[in-house]
């Protein structure tokens, strides 16, 4: 029965209910209601068919329908299919069988759901708090609808919980949440034996901003501004992902010119991030040539962004339905990109010819392919370990089907592979940008959106410089957002990073950390 398509098996089952199959461009969306008792079985079957977890979230519909609902979104690679499982839970005792034992990638998503909604994933191997810290009172669940966003929550005494690692000669080294440099907060607990790291645990979510809560009840056009501001350096990918979710809800097709401009924005964003990261990785080892040339080239790209869109971080461009503002100076930018490409080639060839740089990066911070697959690592970090997963080709969105480009991968999964991965991806990005500039046709910039049908769900996603950014939206009445869930690339990769560190020495951690270049803001949304 496994050979049959999954949804057929389940839609014929008397307890299940096939809600809807729609197609969105080349991608098919399947929505399926599954009873709690069948949930594990359904997930297991999807896993056996090779589906990977995209996002997982819950909604509180107690006021409307007296239920909690858990939505789990999978993608079937190679079949251009997105499957959304809907599980209805009891309002009084919300719990369901945890899928983390089957799919470790759900680990943080389920813990976050427990913190935010009080929904218990029964059988989850690690139910410590994640998104709320020890000083948060019990039984207050901020994403439930009866929690007002302006509630002042009393602080209680509590402490950080770590899985203890003990032994003779083992030391704990607490690092952060406040660091010596100007970076975002995160607490890292190293368990070390001399300089060797035996274990590393991270406590994050120090600056959780309640962005998902803030978006609830907003008109979808206003929530677009929120989406754009989740993260500074991922503005374009977040705003496009959100806009795509809204457009799927509205059932409209975006004009071709808008799609091409979005592609240009997304790829410009990837480029300045990748080049900035290439330079930043050199900062982890004090290699000043790479630091300064990377920073200069990144600055040049940001100034090009400014000339192209009027904003260095590409904000104020994307709206649900298309593009708000046309791009300027396109021919000039596209010829300057050729110069940037040559410059990057020159810089990276000098960098990679430096024995002292290669020596530091090779075999440092290896992410094994099995770990990357099991924990659902995304983006350049996963591809550097040989996981060929890129949403631009896996589930084509926007105009990506029109462009010829390759998805490079590496084998070793060490810091050097992640550097090479970014270099090779940048080469492909130059190719995409040239095609997009060349074939940028005249036409409308945006379409009017009809009213959104209430209480429908849609998922929008982009492959950002760090990996898949997935935005899941449920509409409410009057074109408002009922529930908004952002699963950023950093959300997927933060749990992976600490696993690459044991076996290395303490002073190599900053380099490993920079090679992932994860974003705290994308996590603390």
């Amino acid at each position, binding site marked *: 029965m496994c050979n049959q398509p999954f949804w057929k098996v389940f839609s014929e089952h008397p307890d299940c209910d096939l809600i809807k199959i729609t197609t969105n461009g080349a991608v098919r969306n399947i929505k399926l209601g599954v009873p709690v008792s069948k949930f594990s079985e359904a997930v297991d079957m999807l896993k056996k068919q090779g589906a990977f977890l995209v996002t997982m979230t819950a909604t509180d519909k107690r006021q409307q329908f007296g239920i909690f609902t858990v939505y789990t979104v999978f993608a079937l690679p190679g079949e251009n299919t997105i499957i959304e499982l809907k599980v209805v839970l009891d309002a009084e005792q919300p719990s369901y069988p945890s899928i983390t034992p089957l799919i470790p990638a759900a680990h943080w998503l389920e813990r976050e759901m427990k913190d935010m909604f009080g929904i218990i994933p029964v059988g989850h191997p690690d139910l410590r708090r994640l998104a709320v810290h020890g000083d948060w009172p019990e039984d207050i669940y901020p994403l439930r609808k009866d929690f007002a966003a302006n509630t002042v929550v009393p602080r209680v005494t509590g402490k950080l919980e770590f899985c203890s690692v003990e032994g003779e000669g083992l*030391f704990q*080294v*607490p*690092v952060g949440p406040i*660091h*010596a*440099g100007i970076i975002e907060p995160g607490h890292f607990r190293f368990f070390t034996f*001399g*300089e060797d790291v035996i274990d590393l645990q991270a406590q994050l979510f120090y600056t959780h901003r309640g962005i998902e809560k803030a978006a609830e009840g907003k008109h979808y056009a206003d929530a677009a501004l929120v989406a754009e501001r989740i993260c500074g350096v991922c503005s374009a990918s977040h705003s496009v992902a959100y806009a795509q979710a809204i457009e799927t809800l509205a059932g409209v097709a975006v004009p071709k010119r808008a799609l091409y401009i979005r592609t240009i924005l997304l790829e410009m964003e990837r480029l300045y991030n990748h080049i900035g990261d290439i330079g930043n990785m*050199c900062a*982890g*080892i*004090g*290699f*000043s*040539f790479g*630091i*300064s*040339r990377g920073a*200069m080239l990144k600055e040049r790209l940001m100034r090009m962004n400014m000339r192209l869109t009027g904003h260095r971080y590409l904000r104020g461009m994307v709206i649900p339905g298309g593009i708000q503002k046309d791009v300027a100076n396109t021919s000039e930018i596209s010829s300057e990109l050729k110069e940037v490409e040559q410059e990057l080639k020159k810089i990276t060839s000098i960098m990679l010819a*430096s024995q*002292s*740089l290669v*020596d*530091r990066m090779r075999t440092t911070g290896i992410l094994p392919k099995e770990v990357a697959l099991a924990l659902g690592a995304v983006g350049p970090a996963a591809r550097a370990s040989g996981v060929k997963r890129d949403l631009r080709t896996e589930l084509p969105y926007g105009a990506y089907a029109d462009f010829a480009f390759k998805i490079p991968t590496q084998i070793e999964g060490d810091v050097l592979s992640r550097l090479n991965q970014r270099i090779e991806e940048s080469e492909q990005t130059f190719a995409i940008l040239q095609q997009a500039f060349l074939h940028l046709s005249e036409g409308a910039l945006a379409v009017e959106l009809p009213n959104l049908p209430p209480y429908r769900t849609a998922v929008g996603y982009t492959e950002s410089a760090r990996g898949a950014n997935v935005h899941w939206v449920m509409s409410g009445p009057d074109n408002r957002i009922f529930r908004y869930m952002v699963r950023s690339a950093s959300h997927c990769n933060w749990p992976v990073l600490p696993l690459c560190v044991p076996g290395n*020495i*303490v*002073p*190599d*951690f*900053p380099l490993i950390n920079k090679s992932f270049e994860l974003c705290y803001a994308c996590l603390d949304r």
Partner: protein
Amino acid sequence: MTGKLLIILGQFSFLLLVAPLINGIIKKSKALLQCRRGPSLLQPYFDIIKFLRRESVVSVHTSWLTQLTPIICLASYLVAGSMIPLWQHENLGIGDMIALTYLFAMARFFLALAALEPASAFGGMGSSREMMISSLVEPVMVVGLFSLAATAGTTDINGIMGAGQNPAGLLTFIGLLIVVLAETGRIPVDNPDTHLELTMVHEGMLLEYAGRQVGLLHLAAMIKQVVLLILLIHLFWPQNPNAPVYVALVLIFAKVSFLGLVLAMIESALAKMRLFKLPELMAGGMAFCLLAVLSTYLI
């Protein structure tokens, strides 16, 4: 007696005045090599004055050791510096090469202890790394200096002047240049400009210090750097003994600045090494110094 005292005071004031400027020159040349404008040459003076005017904040868990260490460090580097004659004068007779090596070791000993005392995570890491590095660096330094002492037939600092001006001395120079890179906390051994606590060595030991004391420790580190560079010049590129005092001082300043430029170039061309690869670097330095000793006796 008063003459000697005046000479020592003169050396002290030269070191105190010039050390921040040399640091400024190294910083500025590194910035220019990296296409940056960089801070003003005088910035290290401003920084030190700023720190010295601030009150110090000290952990309640510390003792006299933390209070005293900055002064011990500064004093031992100044005394070490005053042993090397900057211009032609009578031997002060306050110590030889061995005393100089141990003055450095004393400062390091106190600094490592003081970094352990507040029991912060980074101080301990800095101390243990510093001790590991110093156990590698000191043998190289001693063997290098002894190879020159073997040529000169004395460990007296005045007598050893210019002892490196022969082919064997070139080998020693390479060995001692590696020592200077390590002792001044520069790439590839340590990174003086990093903000990454986990990679710090020397800076890690200073993290718990604030205000006046951190100013003294920064000043001490700059003086140590100048003393080491002056020592290199004294051994390998000596001054004309008959030059008047002001010419000797200007010359030594120019030579130290030139060596600072060399350090800046080395730092700009390399990445920091893996911590556990440092023994290999130091073994290289040791090999050069040992070859120098051998060739002194064989040739």
